[in-house]
């Protein structure tokens, strides 16, 4: 019968396909070669545009060729008339769009579009916004396109409210969309600027409550979707603590001034400038970090010139001025006193709540309530458990301490993959609580024994501590940051798993150190102790290195100034 379709066999098809591929490869290679030759010869003309478009049209990820095109376009800009240029640009935009259709996630293509639009005298931003909308319609999570949209919106000065409505519409379609939530976090502070006095980036309460409801809808619908939880976390606490000088300490014995910042900084010429004024006259001093490495650090110290301290005068006034941070601290060293200090209290400043920094505790309370409700329905949801812990800390770390520890236990059971992270987080919270308790008690003794600590943090807050008990924990090291404890006299760190003592160095006041039942293997690990001038008592019982023959002699040689070493 006529008219019936006859179809090639599969062998014929395969052969045809193979030939086609071979042909394609040949073309691709010859075009690439031609482009590179022309580039080398400096022939940057329209023929290069034509050749590169052949290849980029098929493979938009060939970054070098985009560079070639930019070189050509720059060259042509100088040679062509405005009309010719306009035609060129128009063609380029159309070509870019066709490349984006080939691969909507090509870095090179989006970048080239940015570059091109940035050079145009009168770019058509409305068209670009429409392009973004169309690409996001197809794939609402294409972050390349989101990036480009932010660029366009910024250039075209699109009102933030319009962009916010756009994110609304995409979140309505599918709320698993990091890009969309993130964009909200950029737009909302722009839409609701806060007065200068309040912390940057916070939202007015009514806006905040509306956002919280939206994000709650998301995590009640799908509590395993991370994007909503991350946005929730941003809503509750994204304000960075303000830069501050936290503490100033002056020691007569060491003739030394120590300060601590709220964040690691690099002090020195050309970076942050610190002025030290003693009794109204500025002193020229050399700032250094406790470990002597002079890298960005919370804690900086300097030696005082001998002339600046006198036992005869009734008092000395020291003032440190941090010009860039617009902060200063002052303290008075009285006659007969060995030290003086001035510091911000962790309790007053609610120092450790900054990770969730919504001031209104009613908001936090209601968030805690709904999270607990969710947790009842989803007892094994890790995001919910973690958020509950964070909310409790923001509300009152000491009041909720016991409950928090229970949630940590549940969380570790449901999320064993992150057990070590959770141990460290737990250690951090316990340490913060202990610091708060110490400050309430107005003592300089910090008890951290039997707390299952795995890591030490916030050591810069412990500048004034004289006695520190770390025994019966799970510490594996005494970290370099421990060198910040300039006043430490007694350090108990028995019954841990300590292998290294890097942090126990240059501690001017340290007299006693217990390290019983740890994992110190080599006498060399104790090398750093030699830099602690007053160390008199060292207890090393129950460490592997005690088994070595002649260990006492060895140690006596290594640490000649230590009066008593127990092995």
């Amino acid at each position: 019968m006529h008219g019936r379709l006859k179809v090639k066999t599969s062998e014929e098809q395969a052969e045809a396909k193979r030939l086609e591929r071979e042909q394609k490869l040949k073309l691709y290679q010859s075009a690439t070669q031609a482009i590179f030759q022309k580039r080398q010869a400096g022939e940057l003309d329209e023929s290069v545009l034509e050749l590169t478009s052949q290849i980029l049209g098929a493979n938009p990820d060939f970054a070098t060729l985009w560079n070639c095109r930019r070189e050509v376009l720059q060259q042509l800009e100088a040679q062509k008339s405005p009309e010719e240029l306009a035609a060129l640009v128009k063609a380029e935009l159309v070509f870019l769009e066709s490349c984006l259709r080939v691969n909507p996630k090509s870095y090179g293509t989006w970048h080239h579009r940015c570059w091109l639009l940035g050079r145009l005298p009168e770019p058509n931003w409305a068209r670009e916004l429409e392009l973004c909308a169309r690409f996001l319609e197809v794939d609402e999570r294409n972050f390349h396109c989101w990036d480009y949209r932010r660029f366009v919106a910024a250039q075209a000065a699109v009102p933030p409210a319009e962009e916010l409505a756009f994110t609304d519409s995409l979140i309505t379609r599918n709320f698993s969309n990091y890009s969309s939530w993130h964009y909200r976090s950029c737009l909302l502070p722009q839409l609701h600027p806060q007065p200068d006095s309040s912390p940057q980036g916070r939202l007015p309460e009514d806006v905040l409550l509306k956002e919280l409801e939206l994000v709650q809808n998301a995590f009640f619908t799908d509590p395993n979707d991370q994007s909503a939880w991350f946005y929730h976390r941003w809503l509750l606490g994204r304000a960075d603590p303000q830069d501050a000088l936290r503490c100033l300490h002056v020691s007569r014995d060491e003739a030394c001034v120590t300060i601590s910042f709220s964040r690691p900084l690099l002090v020195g010429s050309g970076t942050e400038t610190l002025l030290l004024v003693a009794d109204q006259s500025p002193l020229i001093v050399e700032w250094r970090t406790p470990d002597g490495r002079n890298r960005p650090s919370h804690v900086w110290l300097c030696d005082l010139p001998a002339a600046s301290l006198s036992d005869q005068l009734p008092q000395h006034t020291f003032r440190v001025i941090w010009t860039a941070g617009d902060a200063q601290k002052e303290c008075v060293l009285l006659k007969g006193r060995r030290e003086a200090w001035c510091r911000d209290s962790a309790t007053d400043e609610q120092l450790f709540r900054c990770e969730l920094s919504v001031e209104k505790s009613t908001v936090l309370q209601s968030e805690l309530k709904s999270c607990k409700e969710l947790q009842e329905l989803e007892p094994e949801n890790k995001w919910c458990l973690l958020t509950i812990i964070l909310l409790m800390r923001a509300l009152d770390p000491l009041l909720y301490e016991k409950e928090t520890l229970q949630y940590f236990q549940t969380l570790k059971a449901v999320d064993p993959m992150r057990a070590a992270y959770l141990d460290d987080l737990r250690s951090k919270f316990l340490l913060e609580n202990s610091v708060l308790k110490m400050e309430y008690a107005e003592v300089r003794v910090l008890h951290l024994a039997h707390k299952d600590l795995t890591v030490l943090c916030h050591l810069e807050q412990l500048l004034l501590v004289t006695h520190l008990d770390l025994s019966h924990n799970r510490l594996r090291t005494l970290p370099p940051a421990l060198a910040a404890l300039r006043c430490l006299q007694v350090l108990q760190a028995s019954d841990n798993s300590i292998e290294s003592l890097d942090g126990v160095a240059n501690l001017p006041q340290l007299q006693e150190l217990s390290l019983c039942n740890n994992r110190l293997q080599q006498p060399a690990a104790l090398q750093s102790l030699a830099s602690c001038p007053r160390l008199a008592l060292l207890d090393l019982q129950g460490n592997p290195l005690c088994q070595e023959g002649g260990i006492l002699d060895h140690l006596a040689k290594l640490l000649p100034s230590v009066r008593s070493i127990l092995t």
Partner: protein
Amino acid sequence: MADNLPTEFDVVIIGTGLPESILAAACSRSGHRVLHVDSRSYYGGNWASFSFSGLLSWLKEYQQNGDTEEETAAAWQDLIHETEEAIALCKKDETIQHTEVFCYASQNSGDSVHEIGALQKNASSVASSTFTEPLPSAELPEERHSYVTNNEMPAKHASESDSKISVEEGDVEESPEKEKYCGDKTCIHPGSDGDKVENKPIVDDDNNQLKRNVITYHQMVQESRRFNIDLVSKLLYSQGSLIDLLIKSNVSHYAEFKNVTRILAFREGKVEQVPCSRADVFNSKELTMVEKRVLMKFLTFCLDYEQHPGEYQDFQQCLFSEFLKTKKLTPNLQHFILHSIAMTSESSCTTLDGLKATKNFLQCLGRFGNTPFLFPLYGQGEIPQCFCRMCAVFGGIYCLRHTIQCLVVDKESRRCKAVIDRFGQRINADYFIVEDSYLNKETCSDVQYKQISRAVLITDQSILKADSDQQISILIVPPVEPGASSVRVIELCSSTMTCMKDTYLVHLTCESSKTAREDLESVVKKLFTPLTETEVDKEELRKPSLLWALYFNMRDSSGVSRSSYCGLPCNVYVCSGPDSGLGSEHAVKLAETMFQEIFPSEEFCPPPPNPEDIIFDGDDKQADAPGTHTTTVANLESPEESKKLESPLQS
């Protein structure tokens, strides 16, 4: 013309309903010579869709109760040889009963002409004034016998700029009822967001800004062609076997679809939207946070319930409704799941069946949109026609209005050899496929049929108002007394190309227990009020008004087993008419099973070859045939053709 009809075929198919059309496409695609006939003047049998006037004519035909018996039929008794016997086919269609029509819209045509004339200044007024007859008589064209050969059909396709090709075009007689506004069709390219497409008859543009315009009967008749009223009301499950078949066979290229936009529930006298997808739950303002979680949790469980036998094992034999009560679901959520998502019966569905149904619903979500269903633009009647087109492209021959008088059976082999048509022509074939309604009373004497109750309503507004008035909704109304059948309501908006602007086409379907009106009227009264002249004060609270209503019962032959028919030769296969189910799964399964019985070694509707893989036959006598064929196939491939039924890219 009749002389030209070949007399040798491999397969003769009688009836152009969905299963028959799928079989026709499958057989033709496999290279068998197919003759596909229907005694009616339109495609689809009881699966057809009609314009408003077309439906009126259709009704008239049933109400006249078979007076149409033609006088010209040639005597066939003389044509039977001695070694043969004949099985006569039924001359009268008895599948439709109890038709009742109610018109609430104003029938005063003078009024409406005046109104239209007063409101419109452009060409439309000309259109309205040229229309003089308020009630057109049946527009069935005069009897004329015609058929299409395979090579003519593609040639027509190639010459068409219109992306939408309807099977009637070409040499097949055009029935005016089925003709559509071609100008409209070309401009419709629904994207993923179907809301944007709107059927905008130019005529009505000036009316846009006016207050609620009461549609008159006259207007409905005038705009008759805007209507495509389905006899069976069905939807396509996005992951159902019909969609899979449409995609696999490329038949999808002939049709366009829209997503059903809303799943509704009727609870405590109120229509509300059922949140069923993740996005719906997230956006719902009605559910509390906890309800959101509980619902999502239950739905997620249903998606892979087989993996959690512990959750339902103890309830396997219990009622699904009882099982739901143990799941902390609030009453509204239980209602949503039972009636709107699983769409099962409260008093008879077991837990296992309920879970299966829920899973099926959920698996269909998200493939093409936020609900699990698709609706074919221009009505359900398009689907059988699409398969017919595929059949024709591969050489099948079509004859409408072609009555087959009898099957000729060889006495010795007990096989059917041929059929004799109304012109007394004998047509030989190896296999015969006959739709149930064509079989005579003797053959069906032992058959017990079920019935489907149907109502077709034309209303003036949606049963649930929303931001957009272009919504396609499905609503299940549970029975008042337990044990009765629930009523399925499908509301179509004008952008589905099934009704005129400012109206909604509402289909009600249930399994019959009495006549259609008795079965369905109570639900109609709950949801709608008859159109009244006086405006109700509170426009917001007003129920939608009925403009026009039709009730009828349709035979449901889907449950009939082959062995119930007496005396049929083994090479005669029977296709059933439409079933009452929501999807067309039954028809697809029937066609596939039958095809595999007839041609066990052949693939069922394989994808057509790529255009570049086609080699043209040197024997082809037609000089222009090669070009014709390429364009045909290329035409099928062109993206403008339709909303492509492919899984959206997962990001």
